[in-house]
């Protein structure tokens, strides 16, 4: 029917074609020689002026990585990556000596972030959101640091944390995602360049949202950032993460690691709006997004909530997970994954229930258009000790057009008789009835579609903090949902 192709077109304009972050910043950069070997690992470590223990950790990871194979179990298909054909370090030259304040940051860089809607100079900062901006391999600015320090919160580039807070980094880095964890995480451990570090002390409710904005600028450059968040007893933090990259014809690799550690009664809300360049309608270019994110709920009554809106990247491979070790700990995963054209997403979560009365909720919404493929892959495991464990999983797929695919791959392992696992899955096609109904009320095709898709995602989008919800809703192609009533 004609409406399906029309609809598919609209989605493409919403989800892909009009990638407005595709510009390149013309800025002098310093780069490591192309390729990957032990010297590159040493080069990166030296650039960051790292202590010996950090270098040794990287080298162990690199050694390990050499003996590993790229995983092939995900339902994604891409040409073999030539790891020697990329740069592993790229930094704006003006950062060489390290700016002491925002006044010393290259104005071109500040303009880049402004174009992205992330003003870093003090006058225009987002109210109530502290931002760390990571440009290629380095953090270029972290805002509101003084205010945060007053509350005892540490929010800084991870490269700086290695220098300033080595005891925390040494204790926790790799404690959730060990350097030997998986192919991409191990690669990241060897060559990670920057990322954010957060420590929330006991009993502190972080006074503002923390946010990191990742930007890949250089061609042929991989981005390997590492984020470590430690929420001490009774603390709370809401953390946001955004990502974009220029429009380029070749693929670029992004392999990040995020580790969250939660003590007794701590809570972390981690939100992501991932809008890496998805490639063009023929699948040319785009980011390969291979990410390992994991939270360890070590303390009793701790709670972690992952919310993600994934619209970008050519290939996504990502399973933000929760290890529910502390009794009564809670894990949540809310996800919207939109794929279009030739995008592929294999994403989901793992909920590992170890402690008693642990509970988890998974709400995953996949929207596929064009010739894209979207897979939900989720593991729920109740360990023998997970007495009274509970999981509820809901996976909904929405198909737009008839050339795309949606797949649900649940893995359920229950080793405790008292644990309960519930799984629901639905697949629907966007209905012509719905579109006609909206259009009869005066909405354009595009408005109708964005309204319906947005309604489909509502359960997830309402989990996002206000500051991000707007951006995410626009990304999903929404106009007014949520602004009234």
């Amino acid at each position, binding site marked *: *029917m*004609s*409406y399906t192709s029309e609809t598919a077109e609209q989605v493409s304009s919403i989800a892909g074609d009009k990638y407005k972050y595709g510009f390149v910043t013309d800025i002098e950069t310093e780069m490591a020689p192309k390729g990957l070997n032990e010297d590159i690992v040493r080069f990166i470590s030296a650039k960051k002026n790292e202590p010996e223990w950090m270098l040794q950790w990287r080298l162990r990871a690199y050694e390990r990585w050499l003996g590993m194979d790229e995983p092939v179990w995900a339902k994604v298909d891409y040409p073999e990556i030539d790891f020697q054909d990329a740069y592993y370090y790229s930094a704006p030259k003006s950062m060489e000596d390290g700016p002491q304040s925002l006044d010393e940051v290259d104005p071109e860089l500040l303009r880049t972030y402004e174009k992205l809607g992330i003003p870093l100079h003090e006058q225009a900062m987002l109210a109530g959101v502290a931002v760390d901006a990571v440009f290629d391999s380095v953090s270029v600015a972290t805002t509101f640091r003084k205010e945060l320090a007053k509350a005892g919160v540490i929010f800084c580039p991870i490269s700086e944390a290695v220098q300033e807070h080595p005891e925390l980094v040494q204790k926790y880095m790799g404690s959730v995602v060990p350097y030997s964890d998986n192919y991409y995480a191990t690669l990241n451990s060897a060559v990670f360049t920057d990322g954010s570090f957060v420590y929330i002390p006991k009993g502190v409710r972080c006074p503002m949202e923390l946010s990191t904005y990742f930007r890949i600028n250089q061609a042929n450059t991989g981005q390997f950032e590492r984020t470590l968040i430690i929420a001490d007893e009774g603390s709370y933090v809401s953390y946001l993460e955004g990502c974009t990259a220029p429009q380029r014809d070749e693929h670029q690799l992004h392999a990040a690691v995020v580790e969250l550690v939660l003590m007794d009664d701590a809570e972390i809300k981690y939100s992501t709006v991932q809008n890496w360049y998805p490639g063009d309608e023929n699948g040319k270019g785009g980011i390969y997004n291979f990410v390992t994110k994991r939270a360890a709920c070590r303390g009793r009554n701790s709670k972690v909530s992952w919310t993600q809106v994934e619209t970008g990247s050519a290939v996504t491979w990502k399973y933000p997970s929760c290890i529910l070790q502390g009794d009564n700990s809670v894990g949540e995963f809310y996800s919207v994954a939109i794929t279009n054209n030739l995008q592929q997403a294999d994403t989901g979560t793992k909920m590992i229930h170890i402690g008693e009365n642990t509970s988890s909720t998974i709400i995953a919404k996949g929207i596929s258009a064009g010739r894209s493929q979207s897979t939900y892959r989720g593991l729920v495991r109740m360990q023998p000790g997970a007495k009274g464990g509970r999981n509820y999983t809901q996976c909904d797929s929405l198909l737009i057009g008839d050339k795309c695919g949606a797949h649900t791959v649940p893995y359920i392992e229950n080793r405790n008789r008292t644990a309960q696992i519930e799984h629901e899955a639905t697949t629907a096609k966007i*209905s*012509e*009835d*719905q579109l*006609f*109904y*909206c*259009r*009869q*009320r*005066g*909405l*354009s*095709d595009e*408005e109708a579609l964005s*309204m*319906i898709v*947005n*309604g*489909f*995602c*509502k*359960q997830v989008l309402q989990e996002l903090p206000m500051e991000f919800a707007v951006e995410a809703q626009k990304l999903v192609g929404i*106009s*007014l*949902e*949520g*602004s*009234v*009533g």
Partner: protein
Amino acid sequence: MLEIKGLHADVDGTEILKGIDLSIGEGEVHAIMGPNGSGKSTLSYVLSGRDGYNVTAGSITYRGRDLSELNTEERAAEGIFLGFQYPVELPGVSSTTFLKTALNAVRRHRGEEELDAVQFMKRLRVHTKALNISDDMLRRGVNVGFSGGEKKRNEILQMALLEPYFAVLDETDSGLDIDALKVVAEGVNALRGPKRSMLVITHYQRLLDYIVPDYVHVLAHGRIARSGGKELALELEEKGYGEFVAGTEAA
């Protein structure tokens, strides 16, 4: 207001409307009755410009314009409203959001300023009160979990907000209890005026006791088989559609 001449239309290659002539003047209310499957809903979709409903012959002129030039949403913005026989559910889309988006889309088209949240809510309140629509209904997804009667009242709410020039109400009375029927009829009557015309599709003369039509037409086999005043409805109620469904090709 609306002039339909020699209208033939098909759906997926099957001819359903086989030559309809109908003229509706400003301020008039016409009722269409007729057996199941005679093409009443099809006519409403053709008037709304639904994809897949193709006019193969004849013409529709609306307020002096050839309707074939306009797509569905343009017709809606020009003041054509369809109250659905089976209102559609929009999960996750709150009624408030939906109504505001629709109203502002129409206002934009008409060159009027969009309403902000406060102005909109004020306007909405007036109508929800009159139609006995609860806040809970407004918060829920459009039509999601609504009872049959609630869905129909919701259609009238939309009509009242959008203030169309020409409204087609397709079996708005079916599924309504007697109290709801009165509420809906009051809602419709409140909108009657010298500048607004309506086409009311129904199976029951009962509705026409409340919404008194100027003309009644019988649609059978894709044609207007008979037209008359409101007393025709009474006659049909008594005799049924026997003489029309027999398949005799009335001239």
